[in-house]
């Protein structure tokens, strides 16, 4: 009976732990990524379309500092965050004075420039098709191996005692670390946005001139918002590199920024909790569709996943424009 249907769905995956952990890792990585977008777009009114560029700067610079320069892995992380902040300052100081829509175009250009550099500086990044071999060793150990050591420690001390030692839980430590970082970041941002500092950000989102007339340096606040988003982009880049065990420039196409926006809109603007919901939903949808046994070729199947996400976004806009966790008042109240 089931076999005769043109579209069949295998539900085996629902019980596959490794599948869900994999989806959770992706949702977590792009959740951290989208938290930065939420701070910019949902709370500051800064249309950052270049988040994938910051992710690339964070991922590549931490890897280059470890593999090529030979610094310890854990030292490369704060340094690469610093490099990402410098990138944010350069793009912000040159373009944040532009009107919001022009700024967004400048940020897309920025992220594409970063990707072009990654594509063409073969010696440094592995170039177009090659990916940087992040398992190369240096005196201080490996990029991914440093992570594997940490992963083994988590497995031995936290997971084995509670009986999660099966091989399908091998990625669980990464999942736990990513989601801990995601939840802590969401919590911290939530506190921050409710502080007087966050109040200034929200005022700038509403009306920059009103904020300036009350003595607030709107430009400086927008720059701070962009720098924090850039650091979150860098953090998501580290986890992406660890998860893929390599990086290549096609992981940083503008598509990924827009997937971040999709998570943002699904979860709801101006809500950090919404980002967690949106990112989870988006990746469950995208990855879950792999198991739909559709009567199409594989490439059409892959394209259809994005069609479905688009359809859901359209329906959401029509029936719940504020997203799942967003506040309706913040969507509809205008001057």
């Amino acid at each position, binding site marked *: 009976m089931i076999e005769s249907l043109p579209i069949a769905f295998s539900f085996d995956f629902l019980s596959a732990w490794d599948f869900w952990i994999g989806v959770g890792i992706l949702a977590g990585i792009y959740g951290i990524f989208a938290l930065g977008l939420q701070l910019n777009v949902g709370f500051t009114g800064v249309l950052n379309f270049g988040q994938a560029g910051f992710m690339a700067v964070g991922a590549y610079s931490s890897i280059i500092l470890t593999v090529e320069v030979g610094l310890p892995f854990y030292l490369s992380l704060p340094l690469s965050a610093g490099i990402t902040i410098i990138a944010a300052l350069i793009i912000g100081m040159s373009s944040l004075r532009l009107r919001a829509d022009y700024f967004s175009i400048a940020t897309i250009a920025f992220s594409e420039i970063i990707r072009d550099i990654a594509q063409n500086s073969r010696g440094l990044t592995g170039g177009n098709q090659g990916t940087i071999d992040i398992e190369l060793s240096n005196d201080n150990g490996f990029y991914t191996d440093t992570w594997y050591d940490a992963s083994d420690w988590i497995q031995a001390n936290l997971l084995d005692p509670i009986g999660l030692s099966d091989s399908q839980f091998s990625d669980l430590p990464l999942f736990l670390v990513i989601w801990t970082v995601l939840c802590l970041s969401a919590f911290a941002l939530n506190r921050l946005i409710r*502080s*007087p500092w966050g109040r*200034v950000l929200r*005022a700038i*989102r*509403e009306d920059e001139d009103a904020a300036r007339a*009350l003595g607030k340096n709107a430009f400086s606040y927008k720059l701070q918002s962009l720098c924090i988003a850039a650091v979150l982009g860098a953090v998501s880049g580290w986890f992406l590199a660890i998860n893929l065990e390599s990086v290549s420039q096609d992981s940083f196409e503008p598509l990924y920024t827009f997937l971040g926006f999709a998570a943002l809109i699904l979860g709801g603007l101006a809500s950090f909790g919404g980002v967690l919901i949106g990112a989870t939903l988006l990746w469950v949808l995208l990855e879950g569709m792999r198991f739909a046994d559709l009567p199409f070729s594989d490439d059409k199947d892959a394209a259809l996943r994005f069609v479905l996400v688009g359809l859901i976004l359209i329906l959401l806009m029509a029936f719940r424009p504020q997203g799942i966790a967003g506040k309706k*008042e913040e969507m509809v*109240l*205008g001057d």
Partner: protein
Amino acid sequence: MTDAAGALEAQSHQKQQALVIRDVYKSFGGIHAVNGATFSVRDGSITALIGPNGAGKTTLFNLVTGFYKPDAGAITYDERSIFRKAPYTIARRGMVRTFQITKALSAMPVMDNMLLATSKHPGEHLPTLFARPLASRAREKDAVERANELLDTFNLRAKADDYAGTLSGGQRKLLELARALMTEPRMVLLDEPMAGINPTLGRRLLEHMERLRTEEGVTFLFVEHDMDVVMNHSDEVVVMALGKVIAQGSPEHVRGDQKVIDAYLGMDEAQAEELAKAQELRGDE
């Protein structure tokens, strides 16, 4: 600093002028919106800025508060030049403004609108927010108290937790004024504060202005079209037409000034155009 600006500062000190504007020009393309405006506002006075539509009053406000950059001239406030300074710098020196079209922050509660205007708040800067959390909390507590007092004055206390976007037009106007006063300003520029406010609240607003002037020495400069308000509640009146100041003095003096009468009553559009042309021919731009 140029000698001229230095002399101007000395002069403003002598006469105890809060704001001195001299030969300020601003044009947009070929339109001379402000065409050599010169006037001063006495410290602790309520000064009205009047003039027919298109006289350049709002442009002048934007030039004084830094939202537009003047092409030429000199502007000093409290004995220091504020010529071409950024809006937030000018606001921090104690000069705040409201807008003709209100800028209530709609998607923020009324109370947040008020608290936003707190000046020198340690919690608004990340380093001090983390380094001095107690100072931030104390400042916030004081700010809430002050905000509640001001909201009481302007009949908005009951709306404190509502989104500003749910307020009526008149209430937004009041909120904007209350928010401006929240910054503890030394000088307030109001762009048509009475427009759209019911007469009872309007009187309340005027009383509050007069009390602030008398008790705290706050200086007010306001653009207004309601001549009753201008004649009865201001110490001094500045009249603008075609981007220039054509008269300044007491309400009685200005009321009898022939140029003012011409500007308001005697001049139709054709004459105004003629005057503008004549001025341009004289190279008077």
